């Protein structure tokens, strides 16, 4: 067995992961003078090599010529996980993590989210409220740039700091109008896209290819927006290709460092630190903590409550498409804009009659108008020949879509475990995901389907065939939460309201794993706010000599 390489240096703070959670922690601590060692499981992606502007007809030619787009996503063959039933786990190992290719939707949670359990009694309550997080939302939005409207709702708190939102596309206007006609508000989407120059970041040029990474960094990504400024402080050191295995524990029961493996060579290393921050994204963070077994913590570090790994929650969603007659046969416009939708339907089901399920849903609207992925619906058109060609052209500008997202409740047995019988290339147990929706979500889905059908019909659209009750594959929202949840009671939660472990005071978990509930909203803005808040608390604790 190769000898473990042990670094003797003791770092102020070790951060695991460089995405939104870890990036924010590094940015905030380094500017306060704290020396940080960051471990990232990949490398920096070459922005100049992104395929943002490779046209559809060029893609295959480039592949045939042996060129490759950036390999953002972790190959399951390299780092396997198991799931039963199937759970689609998307991982980006590399500087900035999933923020390189994220959906950029940046919604504030409100007390409808933070106080949900207090109201309905399902599982534990968040230990924080909107008033605790609001100042951090303000700061995050000013720092990274979030475009949006001033059309706030009780379910969607507003901001004084939004950059101008882009105007809606034709199909989005029709859906906005249709929703209004049935009493539902649809507002400007809030996205972490810089629509005018902001803090040194040039504006979006509306090429619509955000999913392939932005070649000019016009949307928030942790690498450019957080890590580069952190490097400039001189307080950040980053080790690439460092796949973390375990948090190491000292005789005093506190974390004393981290074990990692070089992704290229497999060499095992240990590094020492006075505090450890975990931000490797929910499932990987959970795997690391559960694998961090010791005499003191036989079922994983900080897990005396046995909640770590449990209560995995995200959102249940589906897609409904239609064609708006008003747009059929119209001139094709450039409908790219910001990649994805320019409008958003905030939760509204808490108003009006009481529902027979808990929590709520909102809706997103991507893929509207003249979009390149048309073959999926074009193949369903009848016939062939000139008539088919004409029919496809007629429908091309008229596509409208809704993508409702509903909250999945936290359930004790929806969980991530580590399987000692199956190990990865480093000899460490891999993650196994056990996750399914229940009766509450199925009832909510009925309501979600009714709403989507009602809105699309109100737009007088021809709805594409759908199967009522069908859902997108579990995990497809890419919003895993809850497996290291925060709460007031150490017997029922792993973290306090500052993302600090109840059991191990020098360990913090700052990614989606820390969330107590999933909400129906996209979590990244809240991850950034909570990570900033947690590291303010940590920095103050360091200053006082308490952590």
């Amino acid at each position: 067995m190769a000898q473990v390489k042990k670094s003797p240096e003791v770092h102020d703070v070790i951060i695991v992961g460089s995405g939104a959670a870890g990036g924010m922690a590094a940015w905030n601590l380094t500017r306060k003078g704290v020396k940080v060692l960051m471990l990232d499981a990949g490398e920096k992606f070459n922005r100049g090599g992104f395929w943002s502007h490779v046209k559809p007809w060029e893609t295959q030619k480039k592949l045939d010529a042996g060129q490759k787009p950036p390999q953002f996503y972790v190959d399951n063959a390299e780092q396997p996980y198991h799931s039963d039933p199937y759970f689609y786990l998307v991982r980006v190992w590399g500087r900035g993590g999933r923020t390189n290719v994220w959906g950029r939707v940046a919604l504030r949670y409100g007390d409808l989210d933070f106080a949900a359990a207090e109201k309905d009694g399902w599982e534990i309550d968040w230990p924080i409220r909107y008033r605790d997080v609001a100042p951090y939302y303000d700061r995050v939005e000013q720092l990274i740039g979030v475009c949006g409207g001033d059309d706030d709702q009780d379910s969607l708190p507003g901001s004084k700091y939004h950059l101008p939102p882009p105007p809606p596309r034709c199909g989005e206007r029709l859906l906005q109008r249709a929703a209004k006609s049935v009493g539902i508000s649809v507002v400007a989407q809030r996205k972490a896209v810089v629509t005018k120059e902001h803090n040194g970041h040039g504006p979006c040029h509306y090429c619509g290819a955000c999913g392939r990474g932005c070649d000019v960094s016009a949307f928030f990504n942790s690498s450019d927006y957080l890590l580069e400024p952190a490097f400039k402080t001189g307080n950040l050191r980053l080790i690439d290709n460092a796949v973390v295995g375990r948090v190491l524990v000292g005789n005093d029961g506190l974390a004393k460092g981290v074990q990692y493996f070089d992704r290229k060579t497999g060499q095992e290393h240990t590094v020492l630190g006075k505090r450890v921050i975990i931000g490797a994204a929910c499932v990987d963070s959970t795997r690391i903590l559960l694998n961090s077994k010791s005499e003191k913590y036989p079922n994983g570090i900080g897990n005396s409550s046995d909640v770590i790994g449990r209560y995995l929650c995200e959102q249940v969603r589906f897609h409904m498409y239609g064609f708006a007659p008003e747009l059929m046969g119209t001139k094709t416009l450039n409908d790219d804009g910001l990649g994805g939708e320019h409008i958003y339907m905030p939760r509204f089901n808490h108003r009006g009659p009481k529902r027979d399920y808990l929590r709520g849903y909102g809706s997103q609207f991507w893929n509207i108008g003249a979009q390149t992925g048309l073959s999926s619906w074009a193949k369903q058109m009848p016939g062939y020949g000139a008539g088919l060609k004409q029919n496809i052209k007629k429908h091309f500008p008229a596509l409208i879509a809704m993508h409702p997202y509903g909250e999945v409740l936290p359930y004790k047995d929806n969980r991530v475990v580590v399987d000692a019988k199956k190990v990865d290339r480093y000899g460490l147990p891999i993650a196994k995901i056990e996750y399914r929706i229940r009766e509450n979500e199925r009832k909510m889905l009925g309501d979600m389907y009714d709403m989507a059908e009602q809105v699309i019909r109100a737009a007088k659209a021809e709805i594409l065939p759908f199967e009522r009750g069908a859902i997108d594959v579990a995990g497809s929202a890419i919003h895993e939460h809850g497996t290291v949840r925060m709460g007031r009671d150490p017997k029922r939660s792993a973290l306090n309201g500052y993302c600090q472990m109840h059991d191990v005071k020098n360990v913090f978990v700052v990614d989606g794993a820390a969330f107590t509930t999933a909400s129906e909203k996209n979590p990244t803005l809240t991850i950034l706010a909570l990570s900033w808040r947690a590291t303010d608390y940590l920095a103050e604790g360091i200053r006082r000599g308490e952590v």
Partner: protein
Amino acid sequence: MSDRRDALKGLASLTVLPALAQHQHGDEGKSAPAALSAKFFSAAELRDLGEWVELILPRTETPGAKDAKVHYLIDGLCHRTPAAGKEWRATLAWLGKQKGSREQVLARISTESKSAGAEHFKRLKDTTIEQYYLTREGLQAELGWNANTYVAEFKGCTHKEHR
């Protein structure tokens, strides 16, 4: 508020990213004169395939599937994926054995369901659509798509009637 000031101070030294005017955008304005050659099918099979795809999406006032070299694109697909090649060869062989002209064969099998003909028709139609609408001819010339490009201002919907 000190956090906010510190944040802005920390970012003040960053320079604006490269000017958008100098931004590179693929092959805008260029033609695509790529020399094509069959990698999987024989010359006769390729000619035959070209006729079939053209019947699915023919030349009208805009280019058809053959103009867009869809048969070459399917050839490339078969070259990369042997299983697809086997299926396509079987489809071409089956179509070639049918009685009547190509037009008559298509007219017949396009109305069938749960038959061998329906299966071959679906392969022909679906793949022709998938490939044609990824080409410059299909997307730009036929549909008028001109996106994935730099625009200084996104105007969105400008129709008064949609407000």
